[in-house]
């Protein structure tokens, strides 16, 4: 794919929105499996939750939070364009969305560490 015609902020925002959505969709089965383990016994869920205390799982969790925040912020940006008709400052809105996603990730990280 030729990246030259696609190297601009709103295209990057589109890619981030799509890829974050796909990755979150891939995460959902794991999420449901973890929730489902509560049905089969408290000990199993406790064991899984203890496993998630390891640093690698926490790092993955932080990435997950950033993905979720990026998808939400990107979705709100598109909704504002489509439902409110905000024409102006589209690139600023991309920057604000990215900043909000990273800020949420940072807050999560501060809370975790």
């Amino acid at each position, binding site marked *: 794919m030729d990246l*030259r*015609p696609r190297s*601009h902020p*709103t*295209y990057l925002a589109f890619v981030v929105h799509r890829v974050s959505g796909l990755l979150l969709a891939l995460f959902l089965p794991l999420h449901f499996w973890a929730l489902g383990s509560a049905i089969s016994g408290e000990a199993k869920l406790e064991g899984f939750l203890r496993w998630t205390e390891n640093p690698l799982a926490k790092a993955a969790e932080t990435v997950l939070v950033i993905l979720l925040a990026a998808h939400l912020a990107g979705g709100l940006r598109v909704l504002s364009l*489509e439902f409110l*008709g905000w024409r102006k400052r*589209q690139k600023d809105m991309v920057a604000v969305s990215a900043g909000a996603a990273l800020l949420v990730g940072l807050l999560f990280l501060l809370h975790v560490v």
Partner: protein
Amino acid sequence: MAEPASLKVSVWRGGEDGSFARFEVPARANQTVLDVVTTIQREFDPSLAYRFACRVGMCGSCAMTVNGRARWTCRTHVRKVVGEDGALELRPLANLPVIRDLVADLAPFFDKWQRARGVFQPKDAPDGAVPEDFAVVPPASGARQEADAGIECIGCAVCYASCDVVAWNPDYLGPAALNRAWTLVNDVRDGARQDRLDAVAGDAGCHSCHSTQSCTERCPKNLDPSSAIAGLKRTLFWDTLLGRR
């Protein structure tokens, strides 16, 4: 950027399955990409096919893909796009059939304007007769401002060539046709609003847009087709929800 002494120009030759021909062209001060193409045709290869007319950014016929991006070649100074090594890559517009060399066939592009009902349909005189009185259109009204925002399109197809959705779905009407439809939806004198909204509501219409905004990014007139398409989506959403269509 320091200007190189000569330009290494790769020019698309042939049809869809053509290839690049390479020319070394003297670099001159203040030359446009169109100047370079003209130099190649006049001094190196008279068989090179390309299209231009006004040379001053009014007609839009000289649009090509310059170093990967769709541009008007007459309004693109070489120094703005050339690499330090003097490399310049010229192709016909993307997403359109290639006739020959740098000439793309714009027929599918204009066919889609027709499909999007891009023709003004007078409300007061559907048979084409002259209305009895002037329509009063306040310039400050919201609808007129929406129409004015997109009315200056000259149909150069730069947005169409820059749109990934057109590449993914060849039936997609594309940014220019939808922008035209939005200007007419906002024209209080137009009588074909419902037909036009029906025409742009299908699978190949406005709802296929992913808002990558490449059209807005690349439009040489600084128009905003992406917002026009968003306007069509919004109008269709509320009209459908409120049972107005």
